[in-house]
């Protein structure tokens, strides 16, 4: 049983969205896998290093998408009883894995491209024909999935959907790069330098992978390490503290963190000892409702406290002097 009522409310509201997310990611997974097999055949037949790198990259992406789907499936089937704080950290971890997979692919693509530049090879034209068909399908499908995931991510922020639409954008552009490289290699095959088009096109994929992988990891890692909320949200917390300034006696600190798409805020306040508990509770309820309505998917806890809130290595809010004064 959950000990946080707001979490239960959130779960009920999110059930439909969660099911939609799971369905979308599963569809992505199936499409990815179906398109991957002919991709492998085309890469072998064409002898294109860009195609080969794209195949390896796709394999890694399928693994990342599978992981994302598995997390969403767990969430949709409901394991909230065992996870009172939700599965936000799983979501964030999935994003980090997606980013890490992109960076691994980057190294692989870079290495294979350099090898091909050192030892250039002419592409097999008959194999390229199949590759052209596959890449045209790849560009179309990935663009469609990119836009579909983007629309869901815009509707409701989630690290999984955020990493998914970025992933499909990268895939659409990388497929377009491969397609362009193959077309140019065929059209300009009479020129000696055309053998370098294929490996140099791989560098474009390297660029896409680096940018997306870095972005996904840099946005997810702070959340996994429980970084405090950004300044714009901190200011919203302060706005509430000033709005209710006369309702509490002392401010002892605030701490916050993100977990997936959820936001957790704890505010430590001292109340007048002469006030009845029901009066204090009424103030707490009003503050909580006010802040939760302003910060999307937030769970606010007002902690009646007589001393500073402590976190390892730091005293938040009031000073150590104040602590001694109280003691």
């Amino acid at each position, binding site marked *: 049983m959950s000990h946080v009522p707001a979490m239960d409310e959130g779960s009920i509201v999110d059930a439909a969205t969660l099911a939609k997310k799971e369905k979308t990611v599963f569809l992505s997974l199936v499409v990815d896998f179906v398109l991957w097999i002919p991709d492998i055949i085309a890469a072998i037949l064409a002898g294109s290093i860009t195609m080969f790198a794209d195949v390896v990259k796709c394999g890694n992406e399928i693994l990342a998408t599978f992981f994302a789907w598995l997390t969403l499936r767990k969430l949709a089937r409901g394991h909230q009883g065992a996870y009172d704080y939700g599965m936000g950290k799983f979501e964030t971890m999935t994003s980090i894995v997606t980013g890490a997979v992109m960076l691994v692919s980057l190294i692989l693509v870079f290495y294979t491209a350099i090898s091909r530049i050192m030892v250039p090879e002419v592409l097999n034209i008959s194999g390229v024909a199949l590759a052209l068909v596959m890449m045209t399908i790849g560009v179309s499908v990935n663009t469609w999935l990119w836009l579909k995931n983007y629309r869901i991510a815009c509707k409701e922020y989630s690290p999984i959907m955020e990493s998914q639409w970025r992933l499909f954008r990268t895939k659409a552009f990388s497929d377009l790069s491969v397609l362009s490289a193959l077309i140019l290699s065929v059209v300009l095959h009479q020129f000696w330098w055309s053998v370098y088009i294929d490996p140099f096109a791989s560098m474009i994929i390297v660029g896409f992978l680096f940018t997306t992988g870095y972005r996904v990891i840099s946005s997810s890692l702070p959340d996994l390490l429980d970084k405090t909320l950004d300044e714009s949200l*901190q*200011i919203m917390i302060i706005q509430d503290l000033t709005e209710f300034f006369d309702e509490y006696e002392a401010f002892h600190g605030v701490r916050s963190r993100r977990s997936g798409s959820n936001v957790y805020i704890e505010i430590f306040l001292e109340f007048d000892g002469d006030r009845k508990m029901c009066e204090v509770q009424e103030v707490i309820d009003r503050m909580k409702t006010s802040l939760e309505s302003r910060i999307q998917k937030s769970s606010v806890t007002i902690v009646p406290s007589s001393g500073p809130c402590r976190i390892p290595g730091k005293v938040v809010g009031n*000073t150590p*002097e104040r602590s001694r004064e109280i003691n």
Partner: protein
Amino acid sequence: MDLHYEKQGDIQIVHITGRIDSTKADLPGKVIGKTIENGNRQLLLDLSGVSYINSAGLLAILAAAKRLRNPGDRCVLCGLSGEVRGIFELAGFTKILEIYPMVGDAISYW
């Protein structure tokens, strides 16, 4: 961030200069706390030299303002630059704290 102290009668003036950001956010809270510990219950914070203040700095001032709520206590701010004043207005501090343009103005209205 630099701090300079000045006493005018019962009023303890703390001149703060520089940026109050995440790296120095604890300092105003500690200084203000220490000043209050030393029996100074009438505090004037001169922020004319502050170019930026973040949420942690704002919370330190909020905590200090709360500690100086007894009869005879005062926590007054002055010298807010355009950007800093904007942050204070956004946070709602202009509604709960006395703010004057200059140190002289604050003392003359004391």
